[in-house]
């Protein structure tokens, strides 16, 4: 993987869903995200944002075109290769936080490290506690995820996305399900981590106010970038 150059590069990405009638959702997307960039992705519902995000997150494959993460072409990778790259280089924050309810806040944060190494190491707990402290959840480490408020859960999800120090965090409407204060706090946390590291963020949002606070905004309309 390249140490310099863009974090993410999409070249002529098309995505079609085959059914009785084949429907093309993405029409030749070209996109590049640099290291440390904080990019907003906007677009009306049904414009293909979720499909694009799944392809960027290596959760789905394009019908044609190439996707490169840190210079590595992902088109030819098998499932194991995609999973490895996803685990090490990408972080995810979803609208509905998507924590594992049976685990504590601390465990939820270090789960990606645990999955990567295969067994627990004390350094994992230390790293998780450090991140929880930074997002203002010191004292909540052993609290089961299900017992945290929506805003707290989203902050834990942000910490989980950052625990592997990924090159790119993909955030799908991370503030969409939060009140304004909690949403603002979650956004600021991501912005703060972005400023302090080389981790790039791609934030899907419907909120023009938040988009303005990003480095740049990409608008997706009917499967094409405007």
């Amino acid at each position, binding site marked *: 993987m390249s140490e310099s150059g863009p974090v993410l590069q999409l070249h002529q990405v098309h995505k079609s869903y085959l059914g009785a009638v084949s429907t093309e959702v993405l029409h030749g997307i070209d996109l590049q995200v640099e290291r440390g960039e904080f990019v907003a992705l906007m677009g009306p519902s049904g414009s293909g944002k979720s499909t694009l995000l799944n392809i960027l997150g290596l959760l789905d494959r394009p019908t044609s075109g190439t996707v490169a993460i840190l210079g590595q072409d992902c088109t030819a990778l098998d499932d194991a290769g995609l*999973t490895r790259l*996803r685990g090490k280089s990408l972080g*995810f924050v979803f609208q509905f936080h998507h924590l594992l309810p049976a685990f504590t806040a601390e465990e939820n944060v270090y789960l990606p490290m645990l*999955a990567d190494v295969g067994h627990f190491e004390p350094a994992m707990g230390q790293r998780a506690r450090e991140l929880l402290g930074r997002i203002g959840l010191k004292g909540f480490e052993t609290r089961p995820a299900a017992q945290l408020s929506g805003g707290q859960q989203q902050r834990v999800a942000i910490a989980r996305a950052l625990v592997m120090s990924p090159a790119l965090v993909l955030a799908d409407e991370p503030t969409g399900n939060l009140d304004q204060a909690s949403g603002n706090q979650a956004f600021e946390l991501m912005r703060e981590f972005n400023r302090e590291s080389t981790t790039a963020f791609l934030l899907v949002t419907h909120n023009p106010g938040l988009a303005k606070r990003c480095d740049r905004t990409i608008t997706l309309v009917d499967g094409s970038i405007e």
Partner: protein
Amino acid sequence: MRFELQVALRFLQEGRVQTALIMGGIGTGVGVIIFLSALIAGLQASIIDRTLGTQAHVVLQPSEEEARPQLDRVHQDVLAHIQRPAQRLRTILGWPRLLADLRSRPDVTAATPTVEGSAFALRGTANRSVALRGVDSDSYGGILDLRSKLVEGTFDVTGTHAVVGVELAKELGLGVGDTLRLVAPDDHTELFTISGLFDVGITDLNLRWVFISLRSGQTLMDLSGGVSSIQVKLRDIYSAEQVARELGAATGLKSDSWMTLNSQILIGLRSQDSSSIMIQFLVILAVVLGIASVLVVSVIQKGRQIGIMRAFGTRQEQLLRIFLLQGGLLGLVGSLGGILLGTLMALGFQRIATNPDGSPLFPVALTLQLYGRSVLVALGTGLVGSWLPARRAAALDPAVAIRNE
């Protein structure tokens, strides 16, 4: 702790009610298997013990006499009708050497010579047809421990002492110290003193068996220095048929195993085994389906969590192991409950099913081997039952799983 084990345990913990219900199901299944196995093994051991308690495993006797074909002098042809000869009591030639050979075999636990024949027992005006058994008092105990079955007197067959069954003693009004006249088919008569009365638990044998010394038997049956059979006990009772065939082929003697002599009992035992295996198979199948259905539901319920785990880098084989581990853990823990349940059921049955004197009808066979086997079966059942859900979880498309919520 391994990642997979930690997640498997938490998933089971998360669905407490489902986990408890399926563990209850597995426990009941294993309990039934243990109860049934212990019951049938105990019953079979009891039947075998009662059958073989008074029998040798292999009996060697002189081969039957056969008539030689005769030629028709006129037509120079074999006569069409040849009458079967009557069987005489004959000795086994070279029996001391054969006995020594048998005793040196590692699969033989005891071998003893006997003289067996029919006689009449007379006392006053009463008489009874009896089965005479001339035995070597030192080695006969290895075949049938008559000393433990004595109800009166001692097992002394030296000289002109005899040991008879309680039923015969009752019929002839005999007691220890009384005399009994035995008359052989050739009218040879001997007078014996009763030294003991036995009860082997079978009325017919208590009425017919009369034990005397080997030498007295030889004298009465006119078999001087000879023996009419050699009785053998083996380490493995189920090898009797094989050993009997080997000995028959090697010695040319008539060689019968208890399995041939009690073929109906053997068929009964095998039928019990077959029905037990069938019931156990159906129980295991029900448990497998139970585990599979619970885990399939769990995979559907946890689709979002599985999707998110895949998103943060959980590999397919890790997910496969997480669900296989859940199946294995369910089987393992469920089997421990099953062992408890099965043991209680078996002991409860043993307590209820009793003889008139309060002793158990037959002891249930609860063994460590049975417990170990049950745990392994439950573990295997858990793994088999979880295979399909585990594959389904591993194959889940993360994008679809996350989007569907």
